[in-house]
């Protein structure tokens, strides 16, 4: 894709090329947020035997657009006692942290923001900036609920980053690369070559490794939900106890950016899980329906599947207690992952 675009432009305009390539995921995030908001509302409503919005367009499909128009018109209120600079900066920092993660997330065999060798590592590292943004928002709001939310969010994201990273490590051990494009190419041979199903290893190794990859995949998915602060891990927002957590004092476009970051994060986590465990843009039928364009379809379909699963879980489960949250991370996920890593390593060496 880069070569294709480069052929249209002379050397003087390469900066334009970079802007174009960097802006593509942004366009995608905006479209995705519209679709995801609508899906979330519709799925939650139908799960509760309701209909959700029905007026703006057929089955309310234009409602997210209307919501955005409303948010654009809203007053940009800021509490008098808030820290002006940090308060303004925080939502953007949260979004930047998420968006930086998209740089290494492949969308097709022909398009990835930055094809770096340490892709997985980079995403895990850079998405931690989100924590700084959330803490900033909570602190600068000068509101106890915001601060509580931010504290919880920091504790949660930091502790769940460890299971996420270790679960990714299981997949990385099998594929032998931290470059997400390489990881996907490794799984290109169809559904049975996906890392959840042991990857393209010899049959005996494959059969032995499946329980561990499957466990790692499950843990990665659960930890991913916790990383994006969604129910049942929505303690940072916890509207029944903390009003709205770290974004209590935010309104208008700043709130919209928090919201956008949340949905972008949802896709990022789903995208990483899809890339590492479900073959990313690789077709489940091997050669059939593969190629750069089909690749976009496959990765988006897989990620949207995860997003749907996240929504489904959100509208099923109640919120965890703080001690349960920490218990799950440190006492359940972590030992299981250590076992997974140990046995996967053993199987791969032998």
């Amino acid at each position: 894709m880069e070569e294709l675009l480069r052929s249209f432009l002379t050397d003087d305009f390469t900066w334009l090329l970079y802007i174009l390539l960097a802006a593509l995921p942004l366009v995608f995030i905006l479209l995705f947020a519209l679709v995801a908001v609508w899906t979330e509302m519709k799925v939650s409503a139908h799960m509760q035997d309701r209909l959700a919005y029905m007026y703006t367009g057929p089955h309310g499909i234009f409602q997210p657009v209307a919501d955005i128009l409303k948010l654009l018109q809203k007053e940009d209120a800021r509490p008098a006692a808030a820290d002006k600079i940090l308060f303004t900066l925080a939502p953007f920092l949260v979004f930047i942290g998420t968006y930086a993660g998209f740089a290494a997330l492949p969308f097709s065999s022909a398009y990835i923001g930055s094809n770096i060798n340490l892709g997985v590592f980079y995403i895990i590292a850079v998405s931690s900036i989100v924590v700084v943004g959330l803490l900033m928002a909570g602190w600068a709001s000068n509101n106890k609920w915001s601060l509580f939310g931010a504290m919880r969010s920091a504790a949660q994201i930091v502790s769940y980053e460890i299971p996420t990273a270790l679960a990714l490590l299981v997949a990385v051990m099998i594929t032998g690369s931290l470059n997400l494009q390489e990881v996907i190419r490794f799984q290109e041979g169809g559904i049975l070559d996906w890392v959840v199903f042991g990857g393209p290893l010899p049959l005996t190794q494959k059969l032995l490794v499946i329980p561990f990859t499957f466990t790692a995949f499950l843990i990665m998915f659960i930890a991913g939900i916790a990383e994006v602060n969604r129910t049942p891990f929505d303690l940072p927002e916890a509207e029944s106890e903390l009003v709205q957590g770290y974004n209590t004092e935010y309104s208008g476009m700043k709130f919209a950016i928090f919201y956008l970051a949340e949905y972008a994060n949802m896709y990022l986590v789903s995208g990483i899980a899809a890339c590492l465990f479900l073959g990313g843009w690789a077709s489940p039928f091997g050669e059939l329906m593969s190629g750069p364009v089909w690749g976009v379809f496959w990765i988006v379909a897989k990620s949207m599947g995860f997003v749907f699963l996240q929504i489904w879980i959100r509208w099923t489960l109640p919120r965890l207690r703080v001690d349960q949250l920490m218990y799950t991370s440190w006492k359940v996920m972590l030992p299981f992952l250590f076992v997974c890593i140990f046995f996967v390593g053993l199987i791969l060496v032998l």
Partner: protein
Amino acid sequence: MDAIGTYFLNIWKAFSTIAIGMRVTIGHLFTPSVTLQYPDVKLKMPERARNRLYVNIDDCIGCDQCSLACPVDCIIIDTIKSTTDQDLGVTSTGHKKRLHVPKFDIDIAKCCYCGLCVYPCPTECIVMTDVFEFSEFDRHNLIYHYSSMTSPEIDEAKTKLKKAEEEAAAKKAVAAAAAEKQKSDQSKQGS
């Protein structure tokens, strides 16, 4: 059970109960919704629902019984007696109407929907309907005026009544004077 057993049992329980919950929610995702799209589709009110009052003023005989029954005094009725030359007709229940009703106001904002005004009405002209959407921006718009009389009609009825009363008073005075005269005549004769 030993600690390690509970540990694994808890994990198993977590997954199995989550699976049960998710099965329930996905089942409901495909069941038709139970809600109505309210302004477009309305739930039928029960037959004896008590909502907005309605007064069929053509049947009202101005007896004031509903107003007396009202515990919150939200019904205010004024009446003017009809004169002998006027025929106000009969109600649909066969009662003869003897009074003009120039004012029949119900302050529905005060109304407590008890329905006590409905039972005493001899002509069944005040009834509870199933209309429940009558919110207003101004409280004064909730005072419903049911009287069908226009102000010239009211004035006419008033003047007619006044005239009739004056005539009656004059007649009475004449009669009284006559009686007085007769009395004095009688006393004269007696003396």
